[in-house]
């Protein structure tokens, strides 16, 4: 199958006064049309930076993309001029942000915030763009007559639905959803997730779901990529990862989920903290916290070993893998 998105060897740094932060380090993954990839990891793993890099929105300064390619529908986005990138942003690739309370402009009506995305990419009259925006509102189960209302008149869940309508307005090929439910009430989370899933089906959109919640991944994703220290340390199909996680970090993540059905209320968090991004450890970034760390982990970045599409970046597994993340 031809991939819609192929990211390879992507590295992003933030150059701040305090030092250089290696946020993403030689990261690579791919996504087929219509599929959903779950990008999982703790905050600070580089998930949002990866998403912003795909959108061409890494804040600069201080962000610098130091290497890599982002191939989207056959074109390398990193070499496109900003003018071309604007045509893709919001049109072919759009993004849903984490906090609906802050991601909508408080002084612009929600309707206009949707219709401006349509007007930017489609040659429509104002009236037509408005009609289309009302239609999108209805699609996310908000009455079209609330077009002229402001964000403060909506609840958090409704605002996130507005953001979803905005993202889907131009029928993009890819949606990047950055923790779209994290800021919402638990009861609303399921609703929004369900809505996203059904709209994704309806529009046959590919999606990157960024989350730290493996439950969300299990519900909506086909593929999973687990990030740590700016790298993908394990990736594979949902079944492979969920049924047989291989990397000690991924296994640690699964142990963190309280399992309601099994009633064993024992949660075992991964010990230690994310490494200081200003000063990533040598070798495998996870080794200081890894219960199975070996001598080699301290010095050598582990190669990738591939087991039928289930790839893991860990010295515990066979050596014959390619050396790409």
């Amino acid at each position, binding site marked *: 199958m031809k991939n819609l998105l192929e990211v390879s060897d992507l590295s992003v740094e933030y150059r701040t006064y*305090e030092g250089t*932060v290696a946020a993403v380090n030689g990261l690579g993954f791919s996504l087929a049309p219509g599929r959903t990839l779950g990008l999982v990891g703790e905050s600070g793993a580089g998930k949002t930076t990866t998403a912003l890099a795909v959108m061409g929105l890494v*804040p600069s300064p201080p962000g610098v993309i130091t290497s890599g390619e982002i191939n989207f529908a056959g074109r390398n986005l990193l070499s496109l001029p900003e003018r071309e990138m604007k045509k893709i942003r919001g049109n072919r690739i759009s993004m849903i942000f984490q906090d609906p309370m802050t991601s909508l402009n408080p002084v612009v009506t929600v309707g206009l915030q949707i219709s401006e995305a349509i007007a930017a990419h489609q040659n429509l009259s104002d009236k037509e763009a408005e009609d289309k925006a009302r239609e999108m509102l209805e699609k996310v189960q908000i009455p079209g007559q609330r077009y002229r209302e402001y964000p403060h008149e909506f609840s958090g869940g409704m605002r996130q639905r507005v953001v979803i309508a905005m993202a889907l307005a131009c029928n993009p090929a890819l949606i990047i959803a950055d923790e779209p439910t994290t800021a919402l009430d638990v009861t609303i989370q399921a609703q929004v997730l369900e809505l996203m899933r059904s709209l994704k089906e309806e529009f046959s959109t590919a999606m990157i779901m960024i989350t730290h919640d493996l439950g969300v991944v299990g519900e909506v994703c086909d593929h999973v990529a687990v990030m740590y220290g700016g790298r993908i340390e394990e990736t594979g199909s949902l079944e492979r990862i969920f049924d047989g996680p291989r990397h000690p970090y991924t296994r640690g993540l699964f142990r963190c989920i309280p399992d309601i059905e099994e009633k064993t209320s024992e949660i075992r968090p991964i010990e230690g903290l994310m*490494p*200081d*991004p*200003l000063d990533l450890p040598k070798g495998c970034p996870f080794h200081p916290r890894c219960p199975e760390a070996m001598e080699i982990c301290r010095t050598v970045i582990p190669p990738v070993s591939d087991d039928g599409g289930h790839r893991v970046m860990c010295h515990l597994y066979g050596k014959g893998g390619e050396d790409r993340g």
Partner: protein
Amino acid sequence: MKTENMTLPGPKTGEREKRRSPWWEVWRRLRLNKAAMAGMAVIIVLVVVAIFAPVLAPKDPNQTNMKARLQPPSAEFPLGTDNFGRDMLSRIIYGSRISLYVGFVAVGIGAVFGGIVGAIGGYYGGRLDNFLMRCMDVLLAIPQIILAIAIVGALGTSLLNLMIAVGISQLPRYARVVRASALTVRGQEFVEAARAVGASDARIIIENILPNCMAPIIVQSTLGVAQAILSAAALSFLGLGIQPPTAEWGSMLSSGRQFLRNAPYLTFFPGLAISVVVLALNIFGDGLRDSLDPKLRQ
């Protein structure tokens, strides 16, 4: 632009700095701000000049010399002489005494009385607070300089009255700063605890509320001194502040005005002096504010 917290967690400052006192941390940040340090250097120089004016001034600032009237700047009179033949350089050096004195005392008056009003209002709250804040609104409803003019007009022109007038016209800003701090501190546990062990209200205000609003007060005061110097000079310029023949920058400017065409240095140098002091104070105040509140630092 700051990087997003999402992608940049973790400690940003080293362990070493954490142990130091917050004021030391402020000083560390302030030292990195070149503009603020330059402003501070200028202020220090001016204070030294003001203190040692009798030593530094080449001539007696009030010694008239009718043979050397309206001399343009020369080797003997670096900044020229005025219409009475007085040495402008010496007068400007002496003028720094008055400007700084008026600035600091006026701010002192404003900060002390404004601070008391704000602390009482914020601490006790309720109707008293409401009343005091309405009074501040009244003061704010009259343009500062008009208020100062009216006060000086009523009290008569003198150095003390000038400082009182400028001080009163600045009162509301200090009242507001202190009140805001008092409001946030009031409900906190350590205040409740102090009250529980029977500390008097005055003591709670002095020991708990004041230290908490020192930072904004210091910033306001620095910027306030700059404003006060400007206001005082403006009043003197209008003939309602320091009266001639006292060497004061505003009144020197005012008397030099009639010779603008033939002796522009009489207005140029005093104005430049005022500008330099006020600019230095504002730059320093800005830097101080940024170091006290690093969130605002861009």
